[in-house]
């Protein structure tokens, strides 16, 4: 005899939900599927049908997406780890002006940091031609063809400056990232 817990539509929904939640850790996934089953059985106890209970939850893919979004954002905020924060920001950039603005500022900060690291690496390999140069008609940071035409202003500080830019980008990612993700509107 088939019990409500073995109902084919419930089993199919559980399978689709599990599949749609595949990006989440297994324990999290198992918990969500078990709770969905428990909810459907509670609905049956209250006099509904499996079909009605599943329809009220919505398509398995949509239901899974709301967990996935919540999990991505809350994990990023609670862990405060750089990859999670950046990933959560990029996934939600279209959902909030605060996230879009934060992502833009963070992108610019990391771009500046990347350029400064590149120049610091060049400085280590070619100290005579790389630096912050000032001449009669020019001032720039980068590589000069003829060092005798200008004066190098940074000396050995370029790697230290690159480190400062990295720290600024890292700090902005944490502060702005968490700030923006906390202001995300809920989807469901």
């Amino acid at each position, binding site marked *: 005899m088939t019990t409500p817990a073995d109902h084919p539509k419930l089993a199919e929904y559980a399978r689709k939900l599990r599949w749609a939640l595949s990006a989440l850790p297994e324990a999290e996934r198992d*918990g969500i599927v078990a709770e969905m089953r428990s909810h459907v059985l509670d609905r049956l106890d209250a006099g509904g049908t499996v079909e009605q*209970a599943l329809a*009220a939850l919505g398509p398995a893919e949509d*239901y899974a997406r*709301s967990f996935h979004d*919540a999990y991505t954002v809350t994990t990023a905020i609670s862990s405060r780890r750089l990859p999670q924060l950046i990933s959560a920001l990029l996934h939600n950039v279209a959902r909030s002006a605060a996230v879009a603005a934060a992502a833009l500022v963070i992108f610019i900060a990391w771009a500046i940091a990347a350029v400064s690291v590149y120049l610091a690496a060049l400085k280590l390999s070619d100290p005579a031609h790389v630096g912050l140069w000032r001449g009669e008609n020019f001032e720039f940071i980068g590589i000069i063809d003829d060092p005798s035409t200008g004066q190098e202003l940074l000396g050995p500080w370029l790697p230290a400056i690159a480190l400062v830019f990295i720290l600024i980008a890292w700090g902005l990612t944490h502060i702005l990232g968490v700030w923006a993700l906390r202001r995300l509107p809920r989807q469901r």
Partner: protein
Amino acid sequence: MTGDAKSPKGARRGESRRAQLIKGVLDLALLCILKERPHYGLEILQRMNEEAELDVADGTIYPLLHRMEASGFVSAEWRIEGDQARPRKYYALTPSGVAELKSLSADWRTLSTRMNALIDKSKP
């Protein structure tokens, strides 16, 4: 067509507006319900819809509970209560949740007082 409140389009707009307003108070409603005692998902849903008439969809409550759990405002455990035939996942308020409830309640009271004053002023 401008979609007044009595037309189908107007009614849909009204529902959408109401849904947006409700989204903002779900956290507060959930914390209020859990302040009394631990509840399981369907119980919370029924109280939100029957007592507060929030019209919350079944698929909304569990992601919300998981988010609140991940934020540390609620804790959850599977257990069998009384004469239940199977375990259910019960959610309870944590000390952080109590603090969050206090903060959200204060925000809500301030906002509703100001909005009521504004609405009263706009009355003809």
